């Protein structure tokens, strides 16, 4: 079993993530060390050399992102921690916040020092009430010890840190929508450029980093960029906290080297398939990415390997489906989600997500037409690469992949005028009165 980094403390019996427990296990030594030994530039360089890439979904190199921030010390800058975890199948940030909030706070301190900001916000999804309370308490505890606030650890670095709750909108995980939301507006993504690094929160230079990304920083500072980059492969370094759900024996979060194989993750860590059934499909990086099948089980979970296999590493949310799963129904559920969450700014997305859902629902209910399959692909084609933010692509790409690997299943629904799975599988059956559109 490989070494755990971010979730190592989770294995200490009785560990609850209090300030005392965190400090007793080496916590806040990284910020102490960084304030003594690093300049913002050398810390940024260290993170760049570590190869750390964003764990929210896009996988952008963290040190490079920080490097885009203007160096002008008089210019206000902001760090925003993206804790809006909403990508279906992803639940690792929730665990990182609940079980070790100070690890995240220390990461925020390090990132804020590196980019030279004095105010940071944690934007946490509104439903995550317990997480917001835990973070607020942890910030109060850290402030009482001089770790947050003015003149941190007696030095000249100061940081105000606030928790800001969202209110239930998937789109606010997109960084510019998140910034709009933090400004008290609807979460409508902004046209880029300008990028947040030059014009972000309140039009000031802003870095938005994910919870897991930030939680890696204390470890990189203490153990070095070379140690970190020795885990994984040259382009994808470190570990990843994978969320595994669906038809596995042990759903949960599993921290593994980022290039662990899909087979090891599902069959060793998550215990394999439930009820001795056969694996049919895996969504490897949250519902926005293309599906993979049994033939891809030896694919590694790093950014490049999954891209080569035709999917994406995304948020690390791995949804596993067994042979009893109807892929048309999966498409119906997934497209319903994007239809509900589309912000409505761009026509291609607003209309496309609705059409996808309507068409998939029709096929699943046995009312599909032969032409519907080409129609679905045509809608997807019109949705991709044409909108302000990636939600439209995220809605289209999965559906294309379901059709690519399971076209015969779609055709069977149309020919038989019914879902061939409906009657067989109790847990998966649809309610007879249908779904709300």
């Amino acid at each position: 079993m490989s070494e755990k980094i971010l979730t190592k403390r989770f294995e200490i019996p009785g560990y609850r993530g209090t300030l005392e427990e965190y400090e007793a296990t080496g916590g806040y030594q990284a910020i102490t060390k960084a304030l003594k030994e690093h300049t913002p530039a050398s810390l940024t360089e260290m993170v760049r050399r570590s190869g750390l890439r964003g764990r929210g979904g896009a996988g952008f190199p963290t040190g490079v992102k920080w490097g885009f921030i203007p160096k002008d010390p008089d210019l206000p800058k902001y760090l925003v921690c993206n804790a809006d975890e909403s990508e279906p199948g992803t639940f690792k940030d929730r665990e990182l916040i609940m079980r070790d909030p100070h690890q995240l706070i220390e990461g925020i301190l390090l990132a804020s020092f590196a980019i030279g900001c004095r105010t940071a916000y944690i934007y946490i999804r509104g439903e995550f009430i317990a997480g917001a309370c835990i973070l607020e308490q942890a910030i109060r505890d850290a402030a009482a010890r001089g770790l947050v606030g003015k003149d941190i650890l007696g030095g000249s670095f100061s940081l105000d840190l606030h928790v800001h709750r969202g209110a239930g909108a998937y789109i606010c995980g997109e960084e510019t929508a998140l910034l709009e939301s933090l400004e008290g507006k609807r979460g409508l993504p902004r046209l880029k450029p300008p990028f947040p690094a030059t014009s972000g929160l309140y039009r000031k230079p802003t870095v938005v980093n994910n919870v897991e990304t930030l939680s890696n920083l204390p470890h990189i500072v203490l153990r070095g960029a070379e140690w970190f980059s020795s885990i994984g492969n040259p382009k994808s370094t470190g570990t990843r906290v994978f969320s595994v759900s669906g038809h596995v024996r042990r759903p949960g979060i599993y921290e593994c080297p980022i290039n662990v194989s899909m087979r090891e993750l599902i069959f060793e860590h998550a215990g394999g398939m439930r009820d001795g059934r056969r694996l049919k499909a895996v969504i490897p990086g949250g519902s926005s990415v293309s599906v993979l099948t049994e033939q891809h089980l030896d694919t590694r979970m790093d950014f490049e390997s999954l891209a080569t296999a035709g999917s994406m590493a995304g948020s690390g949310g791995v949804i596993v489906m067994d042979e009893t799963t109807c892929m048309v129904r999966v498409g119906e559920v997934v497209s319903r989600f994007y239809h509900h969450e589309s912000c409505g700014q761009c026509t291609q997305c607003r209309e496309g997500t609705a059409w996808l859902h309507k068409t998939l629902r029709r096929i699943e209910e046995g009312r599909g037409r032969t032409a519907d399959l080409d129609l679905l692909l045509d809608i997807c084609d019109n949705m991709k690469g044409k909108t302000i933010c990636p939600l439209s692509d995220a809605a289209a790409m999965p559906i294309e992949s379901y059709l690519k690997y399971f076209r015969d299943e779609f055709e069977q629904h149309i020919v038989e005028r019914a879902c061939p799975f409906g009657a067989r599988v109790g847990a998966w059956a649809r309610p007879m009165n249908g779904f709300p559109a």
Partner: protein
Amino acid sequence: MTEETIQHILSRYPDRRSALLPLMHLYQEEAGYLTEEIISQLAGRLGLTPTQVAEVATFYDMFRLKPGGRCEIWVCHNLSCALLGAEQVIRRLEEALGVSVGETTPDGLFTIKRVECLAACGLAPTIQVGPDYYGPVSAKDVGELVARLRKALVDSNQQPASGGRL
């Protein structure tokens, strides 16, 4: 809501409009939903028009513009939960409470709401009530869950607060 609370929230942001979501959460907790009076009051306070406040209130799923039950039961119907029987859970919940999704029980205690992924897929199928997560919930657990929530509501006259595995 005290003036002190409002000032405390405003002090976190260089631009007062940023206080809109936090204040809407607080007002909703107090009043149960965002009334027209609250929306006008917030607009005045933050230098916005009531329309600007209302467009934000309607954009986000968590804000209510009409009264609901004292306890909202959120049932995730997204993929990981659906794979493991969320639809059965919803049907059973509707039967147990005698109302459909979106409706409130006649005693004013419960409203059932379908929600998107709650980031708790390891507990799928998941139900969230207030800050608490319940899961994995099977259709046969629903009766017990409802009884537990009802007892907590009646006993304490407050939000139930005891999540956990069923």
